[in-house]
């Protein structure tokens, strides 16, 4: 085996690779065909609303995956990941706003409607360049990444960890929410950015575009999973586990705990930003509500429910909790928050490894074997 193939083999078992390929096939080929090519009358037809829903869930799954990287593997529970998601979303929203052009209510060639409404004469400098898709996508990664770099550097350098880190990240997203609510910020204030027309020339409302966005979300999630797997199966992944267990000891070995955490935090923020950017065109709006502290806490619930530190678990957690939410808000919207709270308590008390831990436990019991968790991550095959 060459060095690259042997490295890929340490990331996942052949079975794992096959499962990933199969999942990608389902989301990027089978489901689109069932929606677009199978006629609506057929029992195999995938309804349009399901495409939007799945696309949204895939974005949430990517956000949960991002949080798992920093929480599950580096032990730093960020309760501000919603902020990185929202910032990525805003960057995408700015691109989509610029695409509207003269089709806005006020028909201004460059200024978005809300700026005309505020009597602004020209585009603020930070809106420059967002008419270019490539630039906007760069910003989708750069803005959350840079915020995480600065914020993380200040926090990790001062050895802020545990609950204190959670609190300041929560404060960060709250502060951003208040800032984005202000009209003077130039991001549409309370209403945020909406009324998008098209993306890369495709009409945003058309079913084909929606399917395309779902496929893009599935591919992005798969790539994000691979990036995360690469990190956690590298020696850095083992350094992170060591940091989680005995942070001080790692320093005396000569590893910079600050740098290790920072790298993972920035990477995690970038992934969250991409997830947000994919989310916004699918829901058609981004507003300051996305920064709300409760959103970020909910992401932590998805991760905990799915199984912290497993990468796959948080994906399952995000999808199942959101599916449950869609279901409950359908017939008993008042009940949902209680269900969510109860779920979190139950998982914390009885399922420390989440759904995935439960499934693995069942599998091992069926096989009658006890598995040591270490053997799996050991990168010395």
């Amino acid at each position, binding site marked *: 085996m060459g060095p690259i193939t042997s490295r890929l083999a340490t990331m996942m078992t052949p079975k794992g690779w096959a499962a990933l390929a199969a999942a990608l096939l389902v989301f990027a080929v089978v489901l689109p065909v069932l929606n677009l090519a199978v006629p609506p009358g057929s029992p195999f037809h995938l309804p349009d609303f399901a495409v939007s829903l799945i696309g949204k869930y895939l974005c949430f799954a990517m956000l949960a995956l991002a949080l798992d990287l920093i929480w599950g593997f580096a032990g730093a529970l960020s309760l501000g990941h919603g902020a990185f998601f929202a910032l990525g979303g805003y960057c995408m929203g700015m691109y989509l706003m610029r695409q509207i052009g003269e089709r806005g209510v006020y028909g201004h060639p460059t200024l978005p409607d809300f700026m005309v409404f505020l009597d602004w004469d020209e585009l603020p400098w930070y809106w420059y360049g967002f008419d270019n898709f490539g630039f906007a996508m760069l910003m989708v990664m750069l803005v959350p990444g840079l915020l995480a770099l600065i914020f993380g550097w200040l926090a990790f350098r001062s050895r802020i960890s545990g609950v204190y880190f959670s609190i300041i990240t929560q404060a960060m997203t709250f502060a951003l929410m208040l800032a984005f609510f202000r009209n003077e910020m130039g991001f549409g204030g309370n209403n945020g950015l909406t009324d998008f027309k098209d993306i890369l020339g495709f009409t945003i409302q058309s079913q084909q575009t929606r399917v395309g966005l779902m496929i893009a979300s599935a591919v992005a999630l798969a790539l994000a999973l691979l990036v995360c797997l690469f990190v956690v199966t590298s*020696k850095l992944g083992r350094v992170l586990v060591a940091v989680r*267990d005995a942070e*001080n000891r790692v*320093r005396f*070995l*000569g590893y910079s705990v600050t740098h290790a955490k*920072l790298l993972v935090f920035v990477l995690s923020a970038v992934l969250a930003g991409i997830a947000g950017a994919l989310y916004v065109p699918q829901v058609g709006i981004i507003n300051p509500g996305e920064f709300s502290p409760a959103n970020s806490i909910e992401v932590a619930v998805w991760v905990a429910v799915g199984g912290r530190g497993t990468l796959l678990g948080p994906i399952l957690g995000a999808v199942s909790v959101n599916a449950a939410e869609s279901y409950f808000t359908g017939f008993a919207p008042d009940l949902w928050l209680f269900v969510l709270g109860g779920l979190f308590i139950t998982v914390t008390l009885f399922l420390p490894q989440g759904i995935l831990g439960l499934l693995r436990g069942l599998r091992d019991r069926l096989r009658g074997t006890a598995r040591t968790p*270490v053997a799996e991550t050991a990168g*010395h095959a």
Partner: protein
Amino acid sequence: MPEDAALTLAEEPQGSGAAPAPAPSPTHETLLYIDGVSVSFDGFKALNNLSLVVEAGELRTIIGPNGAGKTTMMDVVTGKTRPDHGAVSFNGDIDLTKLDEVAIARLGIGRKFQRPTVFEKLSVWENLDLAIKDRRGVFHVLFSRLKAEQRRRIEEILEVIGLADRRHEAAGLLSHGQKQWLEIGMLLIQDPQLLLLDEPVAGMTDKETERTAELILDIARQHTVIVVEHDMAFVRDLGAKTTVLHEGSVLAEGTVEAVQNHPRVIEVYLGR
């Protein structure tokens, strides 16, 4: 250990006076030079004008009653604690008081803590892999893979510390003594210039203690080692130059026998 001191009470102390050890001065062979270091915590002087010289290639044991400042001294050398006064120089001209733990570890000073702190979730092999001498930069660590010679080195160390057949087990499953050995192995594989061992035989059985003494003597052939210890039997086994700390400064220094027979040392250990 009071009883050890008591055993030697009857013997004639070497040297007549109870004069403190003369202040040491560094030579060109000096690896570590602690010069007049003081540290206080809320008014309590953990180290009081402590001076100590360790030569390159030396094995040194440091003893002293609880609160004598042994661990604080190690904290100062490894950058965990900043001294209020004094200087600590390493390898001649490197001022350790200006560096943090990470930088000091990268200079080649390895430390074993009092309580064994191996990474319990990682396997024995992975623990050694983390400790192995290699670049520590975060991007290097992200992309690096073990080289064949590093594998061989890990195998070698596994043999030295006697854990070759437990390499794939989680370190958390090892016995107390085995964890201590693994930690010593992790120090060795860093190939440090200076090893600091804080109570390496604490909580070990007699047999494990004996084995550890052999291990340390073996290591000391090629490394400079400082051992902080309570166990006098173990200190005698090592038979190295011994420094006695008391109330944050050096009380006596010399061979194990000389130190044990020192009247001030006897007085301090007996507490009267």
